[in-house]
């Protein structure tokens, strides 16, 4: 297949005549591949795919996300993961054993947690786990929220954007697949980090963004010192 340029498509736009090219965000009908979404179409290897410009986070196993504890029932915490579906964190998923009556000691209602999606079944019951050294309660820093569709852009190709941000900002940044971002550093750096993240969200689809953000950060830091 010819290389296809990036193009804005709307649902129903014809993308290819070969069903073998059907990638993410497309569907096949009568041997033709069409777009399912309003987004940017591009070819990736031999597949045509459509990256949406908006949409909700749909949990899938293995995603690391940032959630907020909403409720505690029986031996589960109900965790809001910025999605149409709430997550369930069972007491047995904690790194150490705790009693049912002391659940709120470990995770209170309102706590922010860095958490992993363990399993999602066909009825969209989302099981979470926190049993990993890198996961756990967030006790410091701030949490920002962007559209989940902008997460890949914030990370950048091979992490180029996020690594640049971490280096320039002197902050620890973690991007959850659900569009929530945890930032930790000193107050001034965090302010700038959140500001930058919102700019990236707004300009996610423009070209040469990483370079422009780098310039922006350098200018901001110059002004501060």
């Amino acid at each position, binding site marked *: 297949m010819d290389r296809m340029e990036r*193009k804005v498509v709307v649902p129903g736009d014809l993308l290819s005549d070969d069903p073998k090219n059907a990638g993410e965000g497309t569907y096949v009908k009568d041997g033709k591949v069409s777009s399912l979404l309003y987004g940017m179409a591009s070819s990736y290897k031999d597949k045509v795919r459509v990256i*949406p410009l908006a949409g909700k986070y749909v949990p899938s196993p293995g995603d690391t996300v940032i959630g907020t504890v909403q409720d505690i029932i029986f031996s589960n915490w109900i965790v809001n993961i910025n999605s149409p579906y709430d997550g369930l964190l069972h007491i047995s998923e904690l790194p150490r054993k705790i009693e049912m009556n002391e659940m709120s000691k470990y995770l209170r209602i309102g706590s922010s947690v860095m958490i992993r999606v363990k399993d999602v079944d066909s009825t969209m019951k989302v099981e979470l786990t926190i049993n990993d050294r890198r996961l756990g309660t967030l006790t410091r820093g701030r949490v920002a929220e962007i559209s989940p569709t902008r*997460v890949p852009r914030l990370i950048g190709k091979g992490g180029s954007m996020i690594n640049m941000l971490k280096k320039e900002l002197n902050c620890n940044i973690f991007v959850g697949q659900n569009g929530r971002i945890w930032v930790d550093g000193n107050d001034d750096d965090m302010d700038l980090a959140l500001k930058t993240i919102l700019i990236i969200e707004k300009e996610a689809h423009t070209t040469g963004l990483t370079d422009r953000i780098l310039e922006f950060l350098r200018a901001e830091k110059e002004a501060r010192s």
Partner: protein
Amino acid sequence: MIGMDEKLSFFKNGVRLDGRQPDELRPIKIEVGVLERADGSCYMEMGDNKVIAAVYGPREVHPRHLQEATRAIVRYRYNMASFSVEERKRPGPDRRSNEVSKVSKEALEPVILTSYFPKSVVDIFVEVLQADAGTRTVGINAASVALADAGIPMKCLISSCAAGKVDGEVVLDPMKFEDNFGEADVPIAMTPNGDITLLQMDGRLTTEEFRKALEMAKTGCEQIYEIQRKALVDRYSHMEDSESCDEAVAEGEI
């Protein structure tokens, strides 16, 4: 008919009272993403109709008993503002708006991939700010664009428009006067490949006239589709075709 001595005339020198040809649409204006809070939104004008559509979701279903285990449900609320018509409309749902909501929902539902989001709901709200005949069709057009803007997976967009009959002649997209004093009104909604998802008729038409009205309305829908598509594409077209673009490939490890 109204009590006037002289016969009502819908045509002057071969054109309609607002200067249109019989098969001409009213001017259309579409703005995408006009509401900050909604997941997707659209403002649309079609002649003197002014409509705003907001889409929320997929989100959790409340009340719970409406939820379906294998698919998302779609809710559509069509509402006319009390100031949208000449005589103040009593606010709130009524027999007419309930009907319009139902048929509009059924016009859009077939293209939405509800199976992607089990146990959730897609809420569509359509508010008519100013009415001038054909508000249900404008509502469907705006809702379809708002659904796309919300990032909801759909097989295609839906376009909708009406045909009517005045002075024994079939006309496209009747305006208020033609609708009120005309002989028939046929609103339809369809996909770009011609599948019809809404077909209503009030008044009387012969089979031949009905066929003509349907064909005319279909042509109207095709024109509207192009405008809807353009409104969506233009919003982001400045980002197309960039060689040096560093659009991320999602696979990156964090």
